[in-house]
């Protein structure tokens, strides 16, 4: 087995690296969807942030500036989605699809405008690996889990934080209520529109962390269309995890494992294309098994109009 998958530690490390962008985006999607706004634009939010991060790093050479650029881009595109879905009462699925196309077209356009040619950007300084003292010296698990980029550690923290915010704070209660029963929230004097803006904005910020990890944690450059379906896998993780942060993170890890295996398994055993289908097939199976509709927030997808 070792020749196929490498040492167990390597496979684990690769699983974590592949899962990190998925976890961030799935947690982001959670805030949006819990507030009642479907966000199939996660793919686009990640893509535009991956690009903005590289531009930031290219201009300044600083990872902090790059992170600022990525967060700003993710937030901007998320706010466009919120503006369309909440303020202009557009169809959320269509707006999300448009966000994806806008990010794809926009990054393609800007690649030519900023770097002079499409394809791949110049290399930038990425987020290096920062081993955590002591923890990283645990055999096998240590190097895999604790000798990673700072963004990976942030991901570890964000899972419980998201859980806490959603289920243990007044804000989380209101956000969840907005997704389940906007009328009740409205009656209680809380603005449905504002809660949804918060939810979508948070999804943009979290998805942008996933995006910048792709371009500056894994690759140190931007390639057109580099998200390559990861936003949709994150969406799948969210559904698979039944709109719960722990569940979604677990599902993202599972999908991250599938991706890690994809990159390592020799073609003769199982063709790469079939391995790549795993997350999508799993999602369909999960949807069919759980009955799909019953679990999603009740008011998801519907614009709220005060009568």
């Amino acid at each position, binding site marked *: 087995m070792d020749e196929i998958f490498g040492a167990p530690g390597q496979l684990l490390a690769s699983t974590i690296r592949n899962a990190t962008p998925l976890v961030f985006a799935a947690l982001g999607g959670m805030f949006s969807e819990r507030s009642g706004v479907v966000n199939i634009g996660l793919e686009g939010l990640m893509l535009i942030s991956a690009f903005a991060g590289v531009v930031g790093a290219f201009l300044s050479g600083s990872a902090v500036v790059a992170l600022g650029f990525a967060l700003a881009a993710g937030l901007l595109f998320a706010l466009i989605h919120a503006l369309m879905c909440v303020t*202009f009462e557009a169809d959320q699925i269509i707006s999300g699809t448009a966000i994806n196309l806008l990010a794809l077209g926009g990054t393609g356009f800007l690649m030519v405008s900023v770097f002079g040619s499409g394809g791949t950007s110049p290399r930038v300084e990425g987020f290096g690996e920062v081993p955590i003292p002591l923890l990283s010296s645990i055999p096998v698990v240590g190097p895999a889990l604790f000798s990673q980029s700072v963004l990976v550690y942030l991901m570890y923290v964000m899972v419980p934080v998201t859980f806490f915010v959603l289920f243990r704070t007044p804000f989380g209660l209101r956000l969840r209520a907005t997704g389940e029963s906007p009328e009740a929230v409205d009656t209680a004097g809380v603005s449905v529109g504002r809660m949804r803006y918060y939810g979508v904005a948070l999804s943009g910020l979290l998805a942008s962390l996933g995006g910048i990890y792709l371009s500056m944690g894994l690759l140190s450059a931007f390639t057109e269309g580099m998200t390559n379906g990861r936003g949709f896998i994150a969406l799948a993780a969210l559904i698979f995890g039944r709109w719960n942060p722990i569940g979604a993170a677990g599902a993202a890890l599972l999908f991250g494992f599938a991706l890690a295996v994809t990159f390592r398994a020799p073609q003769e055993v199982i063709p790469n294309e079939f391995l790549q289908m795993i997350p999508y097939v799993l999602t*369909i199976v999960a949807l069919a098994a759980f009955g799909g509709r019953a679990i999603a927030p009740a008011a998801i997808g519907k614009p709220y109009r005060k009568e």
Partner: protein
Amino acid sequence: MSNRLRRALVDAGGALVFPLIAILISFVLGALIVLATGNNPLTAYSALVRGAVGSPTAIGRTLLGATPLIFTGLAVAVAFRAGLFNIGGEGQLYIGAITAAWLGVTLGSLGALSIPLVLLACVVTGFLWGAIPGVLKARFGAHEVITTIMLNFIGINLATYLALKPLRTEGLVPGTDAIDFAARIPFVGLGLGRANYGFLLALVAAVVAYLLLWRTRRGFQIRAVGLSPGAANYAGMGIGTNTVLALAIGGAFAAIGGGVEVLGVYGKMTIPFVTNLGFNGIGVALLGRNHPAGVVLGALLFGGLASGAQEMQFSTDVPLQLTNVLLAVILLLVTATKLVELLLGKRARALAGARLEKGLG
């Protein structure tokens, strides 16, 4: 003017309010972007128009670009009439394309006779592929938006696998064997460049979609389910059957689109293959208000933009990708009901929105 005609015209005018506003705003935004790149928007846009309709070759390019979008647009529109959102056009198109690439080579010795056989096979595979999310929804309640997105990736990977492994042939670009010229859809000629008769097939498909939805009992049922599932159910029209059929018929349309791309344009399936035709089909359907005639118009607009972009990039230094940004903005705005109300007042929204909201409900 007869009352009926007047009502039809008012209806058509109302239906155009959303698309026109979306197009207008996207072009204003586009002009600002062109200005930001240091170019003159008038020069850029006149090049865009010239590249879309300025010469027979340009028109041919526009028709060529519009053809697959009519098919994927119909795939979205038919499902939409049943109240279903088919985001799976991309995967369905790939399934049709690989079917055509495989059978086109196998049956190639039959010459032109193989073309209808191959396209019929596309109908069958597309129908079956499209039925999957329908069955998942009708039987298990799995939401079609998610399942069709997931099936996109599965279909693309499946087609890629087939083109790269069992059907792969020697060649510079990885992909399947080339189909015999006699078994391909012929060029129109008439100075229209590489435009082929696939465009006529797309028009026929639009007419078929219209007849199916508005002139058959099944089409009536599909639309009834879309307008009011509860009432349709009460009237004894099976929601499940109509859900499966609407998505399956949509899948068949997208798959023929893939088949026509292979038989008419590329003569084989290469990897990578054309992308985003399924997603742009969503925009086409929405611009066309999910009516087959509107789908044709929407596809012509998208095809024209893509064709004109090449000329624009050639004569200014505005990147080709600007049109993708324009398309995304159009798509973003085309269902923004409140925006129309803000711009034109409540009456305009009532006029334009009533039918849209029914379709989206």
